[in-house]
């Protein structure tokens, strides 16, 4: 298992989702990906994308103007 980070700040949806999807394509099951974004839409869209594609949301939190989504690759 390895941990990775993705900077999706200032990108508007659906770009954070697309970047997440592309990053996950290069990871293996059990890896963890932390995505940092600023578009509040990502709060809905990344978890929705994960649900339909079989990945697990470990945590979502909001810190100042940033949204941090942690995903476990399924």
């Amino acid at each position, binding site marked *: 298992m390895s941990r990775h980070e993705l900077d999706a700040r*200032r990108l*508007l*949806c*659906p*770009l954070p*989702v*697309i970047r997440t*999807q592309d990053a996950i394509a290069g990871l293996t099951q059990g890896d963890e990906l932390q995505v940092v974004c600023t*578009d*509040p*839409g990502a709060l*809905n*869209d990344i978890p*929705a*994308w994960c*649900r*339909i*594609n079989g990945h697990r949301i470990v945590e979502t939190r909001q810190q100042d103007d940033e949204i941090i989504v942690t995903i476990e690759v399924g």
Partner: protein
Amino acid sequence: MTAPQRKAVALISGGLDSMLAARVVMQQGIHVEGINFFTGFCVEGHTHAIRKKDQSKNKRNNALWVAEQLGIKLHIVDVIDEYKDIVINPKHGYGQNLNPCLDCKGFMVHKAWEWMQNNEFDFIVTGEVMGQRPMSQRKDTMPVVQKESGAGDRLLRPLCAQHLPATLPEREGWVDREQLLDFHGRNRKPQIALAKRFGFTDYAQPAGGCCFLTDKAYSTKLADLWQARGERRYELDDIMLLKVGRHLRPQANFKLIIGREEGENKFMEGYRKQFIHFRCVSHRGPFVLLDGTPSDADIELAARIVARYSQGRDDDQVTLEVGFTDGRMHELQVSPLPSAEIHDEWHV
């Protein structure tokens, strides 16, 4: 020997038609996955994400939502760069505004066809309905999409298949043509009835089209951008900025993008390093970006216009801060431009 599981990739826009088309095919035991293209012009999300007053609204991405309702995977593909050529040089021209629908459809089906081959899928599904859209969904243009995309008879349009010649999936018996539909024209009742049958109660029905290019005001701004630059070219940032603010072009060599509310101001501040920008110091006022190549006199004029849009519009002097792309900052004191001197034709 059992027949192999056939697989289809469905173009999912987020609207009702593509949702129904995918569902009709799934009903016949086909494994379906969705594909959605991000061109930069999609109506989804953006302006909602930017404008503060809209932030409380539901910001769901309809394509993702549809995929979830259908229980299928969704692949979102970034086609921003490749799509430029479609918008700039559409072989079949534009629709009512700068929407190159026929070229766009051909392009998207082509991308889906490539994806289909790379992922060993068997055919492509779209939610097109014959006679529904004036440009891309006509009896004479539907074969154009089929041909130019390269998809040929691996392109199935389940909602109007009975009006079209049988495609490979039908001829091979992967799907039963009898169970496909014969929708036609602009009447939405059959779609609504079918949605009800499938138990879909909450779905999006885009009025004009699926993207900003069908919007008159948006197309005018894009045309203005091209004219001012003397060439038909754009970057993602350009087309994003066309969605925010009030656009004013006092002269051919520059335009101002004036934030209309807090959310827009904040979004535009993200472009500080790429554009000359203005902020009011002495009063409350909008954040403003300047796009173009202004002279010193133009900066002064721009500052007076910005002052006009600030709370100091009726005062003698307004103090502004001007930031340049190399990081230099200047403070300027100007008198707000009288409203009579803000010409109507400046509004893009």
